[in-house]
């Protein structure tokens, strides 16, 4: 089955939010804070503009609470008297001419009486920098297993390391955008987004409207990667405020510069490891400290920290683990959801550190991993017993074999000893990624899905889960076809429209295929039950039964499914122990790099990605997810650097924020080891985020081998490599 909406995309027919017809629509823009922190003393409208032609909105125009509701309510929709980061929204303007709006916005000046900002999330805040609690910690999470101090005291070797990662911009190719208008007393908001019900809940709170008087509709979305998880609520409500005041439709479409400067990025991190190993090369203690830069408001930092902390000890068995995590407030724009959600940061530290430890104690890095990878019956850092039957050592060996790891190593040794300016190396990373929401998250979401049998015999899937390129439409269609024996043209997927679909949860956390896809299957079964059919009935029998049902009944035919946790899953939020995820994807990635000593550039020359993501439902889509995630992570590892200055991203353009082109990366060689997960649709597990976790440490480990240095930080830009080559780190 080809991608359902593929031809529309390949011929330019797909209509994204900025492609919708313009009739009578105003263009909205956002007036933003010029400074990182302080009390607003005025918003001054220049005299050279006839402001009567504009719709102008500030915080006084917010009918409900001035907040973008997410986990907390600390982030204002429009700053009232105080700003906490540069680019924080202060006011909104709209006009029928986009050029007029762009010109006018430059004539508005926000004046601020500044207070001392803080930008270094690793530094102790001074008293006048404290803005949250007693110490600026937005969230602290500790995971404790066994007795780390005793184990470190008795360890044959103790190895320490400190690892840093920078912020990363999503660079979804379609910038953020929203349109809002009122229709028969209902506020309609349509745009580029991942979580329609997040926007709905935020709208109900800020606009003081009943949920049946607001409708959120997802428009085809040109990439998300987490960047359209929480920030779209802000833009949606801005467009809504303008539309309600103007009594006309209003669209807000960010350009690339505004999008990069104002919206979320991946959390920067500092992770410290102190690791105890016995004389056989087995881990006896992992003492890990995780710090994330949360930015100016709480937003999603507590849950990003949670996932980061839980993955921090890697896919290894160790009896004594202590992970202390904190997300710190800074006066940078809030960092947010980004594919991997904290795990890429902690996996980078852990997998780079595994190589450092192996080198220190004199064991090959592959052998050190082989001795410590979790085998069935052993437990993770949170005490979750793994019993899924996946052979993680075999998976690692498969990756080494596919990458010709040993042969390459000898070739590199010969080349590095003789070549005047090229150095090559090969490195690996073993890692895992929990699929679905963390801990009790899926139980609390209580996702629901409906499957309507239409009068013409077709099936309509009603869910809140959206297509942003990752393949939801195709996977849901395929699951219905496989379950009921139908052809793709007999299945339609409803728009993610909160006025029509049940809340099947957000399209995040590698959960759509695994969690919601299972609901699709169960709703198929429920539909068949209502029709009085057996589970073995399929194809024409189902279609005929649906048509006959409509002839006999004058009401909708709807199959339902509601989330049920897999049996035996237990999680204790208070102690952070138990089954953190229903299941995990497991992987070993191997990267080969070439460093050019003349230009200080590192280039990935080969990449092998071996993983167990359960049953592969659609080979092309699954491979595309892995390849795309790997290349996004290659960018994070080598070139993507946000140049911050006083809380402002200086390189907010694709000219100097460098993402990989087709000529910068090799073919990504993907191999799936399929071990079905009993509670996923046809055995599938989540896979979207996994490929973001492994490439950066594999590449850094390969660079370490190539130039015989010890990188502790990414991105490994030419400047950074020059420092490494001169100083060794």
């Amino acid at each position, binding site marked *: 089955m080809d991608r359902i909406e593929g031809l529309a995309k390949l011929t330019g027919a797909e209509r994204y939010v900025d492609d919708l017809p313009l009739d009578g629509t105003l263009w909205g823009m956002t007036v933003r804070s010029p400074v990182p922190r302080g009390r607003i003393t005025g918003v001054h409208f220049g005299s050279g503009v006839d402001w009567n032609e504009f719709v102008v909105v500030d915080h006084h125009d917010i009918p409900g609470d001035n907040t973008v509701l997410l986990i907390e309510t600390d982030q204002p929709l429009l700053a009232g008297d105080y700003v906490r980061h540069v680019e924080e929204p202060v006011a909104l303007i709209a006009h029928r001419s986009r050029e007029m709006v762009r010109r006018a916005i430059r004539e508005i000046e926000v004046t601020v009486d500044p207070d001392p900002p803080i930008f270094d999330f690793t530094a102790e805040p001074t008293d006048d920098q404290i803005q949250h609690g007693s110490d600026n910690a937005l969230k602290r999470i500790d995971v404790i297993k066994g007795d780390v101090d005793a184990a470190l005291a008795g360890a044959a070797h103790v190895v320490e390391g400190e690892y840093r990662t920078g912020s990363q911009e999503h660079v979804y190719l379609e910038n953020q955008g929203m349109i809002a208008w009122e229709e028969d007393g209902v506020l309609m908001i349509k745009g580029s987004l991942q979580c329609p019900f997040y926007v709905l809940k935020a709208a109900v709170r800020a606009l003081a409207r009943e949920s049946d008087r607001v409708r959120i509709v997802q428009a085809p979305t040109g990439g998300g990667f987490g960047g359209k998880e929480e920030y779209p609520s802000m833009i949606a409500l801005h467009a809504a405020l303008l539309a309600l005041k103007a009594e006309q439709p209003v669209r807000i479409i960010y350009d690339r510069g505004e999008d990069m400067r104002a919206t979320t990025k991946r959390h920067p991190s500092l992770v410290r490891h102190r690791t105890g190993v016995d004389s056989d090369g087995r881990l006896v203690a992992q003492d890990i400290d995780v710090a994330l830069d949360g930015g100016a408001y709480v937003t999603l930092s507590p849950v990003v920290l949670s996932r980061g902390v839980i993955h921090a000890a890697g896919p290894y068995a160790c009896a004594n683990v202590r992970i202390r995590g904190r997300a710190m407030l800074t006066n940078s724009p809030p960092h947010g959801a980004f594919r991997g959600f904290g795990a890429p940061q902690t996996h980078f530290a852990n997998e780079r550190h595994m190589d450092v430890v192996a080198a220190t104690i004199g064991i090959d890095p592959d052998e050190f991993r082989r001795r410590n990878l979790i085998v069935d019956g052993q437990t993770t850092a949170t005490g979750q017993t793994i019993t899924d039957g996946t052979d993680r050592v075999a998976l690692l060996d498969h990756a080494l074999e596919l990458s010709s790891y040993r042969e390459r190593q000898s070739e590199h040794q010969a080349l590095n000893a003789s070549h005047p300016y090229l150095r090559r190396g090969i490195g690996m990373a073993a890692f895992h990624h929990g699929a679905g929401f963390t801990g009790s998250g899926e139980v609390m979401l209580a996702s629901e899905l409906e499957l309507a049998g239409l009068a013409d015999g077709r099936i309509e899937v009603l869910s809140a889960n959206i297509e942003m390129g990752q393949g939801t439409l195709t996977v849901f269609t395929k699951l219905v076809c496989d379950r009921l024996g139908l052809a793709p043209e007999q299945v339609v997927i409803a728009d993610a429209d909160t006025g029509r679909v049940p809340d099947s949860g957000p399209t995040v956390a590698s959960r759509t295929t695994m969690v919601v896809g299972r609901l699709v299957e169960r709703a198929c079964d429920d539909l068949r039950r209502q029709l009085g059919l057996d589970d073995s009935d399929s194809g024409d029998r189902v279609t005929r039964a649906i048509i006959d049902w409509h002839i006999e009944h004058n009401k909708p035919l709807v199959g339902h499914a509601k989330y049920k946790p897999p049996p035996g899953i237990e999680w204790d939020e208070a102690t952070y122990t138990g089954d953190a995820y229903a299941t995990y994807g497991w992987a070993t990635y191997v990267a080969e790099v070439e460093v050019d000593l003349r230009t200080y550039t590192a280039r990935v020359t080969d990449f092998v990605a071996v993983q167990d993501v359960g049953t592969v439902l659609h080979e092309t889509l699954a491979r595309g997810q892995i390849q795309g995630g790997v290349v*996004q992570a290659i960018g994070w590892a080598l070139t993507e650097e946000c140049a911050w200055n006083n809380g402002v991203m200086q390189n907010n353009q694709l000219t100097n924020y460098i*993402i990989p082109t087709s000529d910068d990366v090799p073919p990504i060689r993907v191999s799936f080891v399929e071990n079905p997960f009993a509670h996923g649709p046809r055995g599938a597990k989540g896979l979207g985020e996994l490929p973001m976790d492994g490439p950066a440490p594999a590449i850094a480990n390969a660079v370490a081998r190539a130039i015989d240095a010890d990188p502790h930080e990414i991105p490994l830009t030419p400047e950074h490599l020059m420092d490494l080559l001169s100083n060794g780190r």
Partner: protein
Amino acid sequence: MGADATTPPMNRPPIKVPFTLNGMEITVSIDPAERLLDTLRYRLGMTGSKEGCGEGECGACTVHVDDIPVNSCLIPTYQVRNAEVRTIESIDPSDVGALLASGATQCGACTPGVVMTAMWVREHPELLVTHTLRELMAGNLCRCTGYDGIIDGVRQSLKEGPQ
């Protein structure tokens, strides 16, 4: 603050620009400072070409002008006077079967530009004597596919040859 030196004045008188768009001769009345991308998208409603960056880096707005792929966000519309402009709207579904099968499109925002460059390569196979496919496609940024789906699809469509 105030308008900077490079900002053109408001209320400029429109100018008429005749050109051929996807084989049809048309004349548009435009603002002299208008970008070809905006003429196509907002004046003519041909929204297939996308704005990804607005500065000629990403290639999502790629169209052909006189058989050369260009970033339409960098071309003032008056420059296409009497030229032949070809956009993604000219592409027939039968032209993109190989790209569909290979997984060349995911989110679709870069895709119209990718397809226009791919078509140009297919119509000029001599380019492959001096350039690799990865070099030729490097002007179109994609954040979803990791490029393998695109490269495999273009390679397959090259085997099939120009339509």
